C-alpha cells in the first residue's frame, strides 16, 4: 500500500483530536465509542461516523488490537535489504503479499528497504527470510534486538 498525502485541509481539528486520542488506547468497555467520545466532548454516533470516514479516506492504517509476536510464543525481527532502484516497487509488492511483514518502509541508505517480520513460531523468522531471499534474489540482513535500552515514550514509527 502506497498512500499519497491527502490534501492538507482534509481533516478538521476534531478529526485530529480523535486520531491523537485513540493512538493512546481504546476502552475495553461495552460502549467504548461513547466512553472515548465523552473524553473528547463528542457523541457516540459522531465518533463512529468520523472514524468510519477516516478509515474510508485511508487516514487510518489499523484500528484494533496490536499484537506482540514474542508474547504469543513467536518472534519478530528487523530486516533490511539493498533493493536496486528499478526493482523497488516489485520487491515492495512481494513484501506486501506476506502477512508476516508487519511494517515496511523505504529509508535513505544503500540498505533502502527496511521491514519487520513477525511470526507466531520463533524459528519461522529464518525460514521466512530465506523464502523471501529466494523469491527476490536479494540478501536480507537480519537485525534482531540483542538488548533493549528502555523503550521510550516517543511515537513509534
Amino acid at each position, binding site marked *: *500500500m*502506497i*498512500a*499519497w*498525502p*491527502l490534501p*492538507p485541509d482534509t481533516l478538521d481539528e476534531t478529526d485530529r483530536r480523535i*486520531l491523537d486520542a485513540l*493512538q493512546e488506547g*481504546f476502552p*475495553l*468497555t*461495552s*460502549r*467504548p*465509542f*461513547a466512553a472515548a467520545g465523552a473524553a473528547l466532548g463528542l457523541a*457516540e454516533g459522531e465518533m*463512529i461516523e468520523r*472514524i*468510519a470516514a477516516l478509515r474510508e479516506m*485511508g*487516514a*487510518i*492504517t*489499523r*484500528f*484494533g*488490537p496490536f*499484537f506482540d509476536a514474542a*508474547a*504469543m*510464543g513467536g518472534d*519478530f525481527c528487523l530486516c533490511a535489504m539493498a533493493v536496486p532502484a528499478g526493482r523497488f516497487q516489485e520487491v515492495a509488492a512481494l*513484501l*506486501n503479499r506476506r*502477512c508476516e*511483514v*508487519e*511494517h*515496511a*518502509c*523505504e*529509508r535513505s541508505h544503500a540498505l533502502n*528497504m*527496511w521491514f519487520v517480520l513477525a511470526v*507466531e*513460531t520463533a524459528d519461522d523468522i529464518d525460514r521466512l527470510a530465506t523464502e523471501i531471499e529466494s523469491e527476490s534474489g536479494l540478501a536480507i*540482513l537480519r537485525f534482531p534486538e*540483542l*538488548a*533493549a*535500552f*528502555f*523503550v*521510550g515514550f*516517543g*511515537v*513509534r*514509527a
Partner: protein
Amino acid sequence: MSIDAIDRRLLAATQAGLPLTPEPYAELGRWLDLGEEEVIDRLASMQARGVIRRIALAPNHDALGLPANGVSVWDVLDSEVERLGPQVGALAFVGHCCLRPRFLPLWPYNLFAMLHGAGREEVEEKRAVIARLLGPACRGQDILYSTRILKKTGMRLKKTEP
C-alpha cells in the same frame, strides 16, 4: 506463554479493524458465538499478559503528512555500549533504543535510536545531543530517514489455523 484457539480467533477477527458499531465487543461476540463479557475478558487478559500491546488506532502518517522520522545508528565501542546505551535510551526524545548486530564492512553500527521531529532540522538537533553524549566511544554514525511507508498494518495472523 501463548494463546488458545478462541483467543486466536478473536485476534484474527479484529485484524481488519474493530467493528464500527456502538457495541463492537458484543458484535465480535456475535461473529464468534461468544458473549460480550467473554470477549472483553479475553482481550483484557491478553493485554495484561502482553500478547496485545494496546488496543488503539494507527494513523497513516504517509497520507496525513509524514513528520520526519529517522533511525539514528551508531558504532559504539563494545566495551562502552552497555554503559552508554541505557543513557541514550533514557533521553526523553529517544523512541525505541536497542543493541543490534553489525554486518561488517557494510554495516558497522550496533546502537539504534529512533528519532522523531516536526522536520529534519529538529531530528538533527536531537542527533547532535546523542553524539555529544557518546563522545569518543562512538566511531561512526549515520541516520536513515523514512522516505516512504510501504506497509504498516501491525502483525497479522495467517488466515488458516496453525
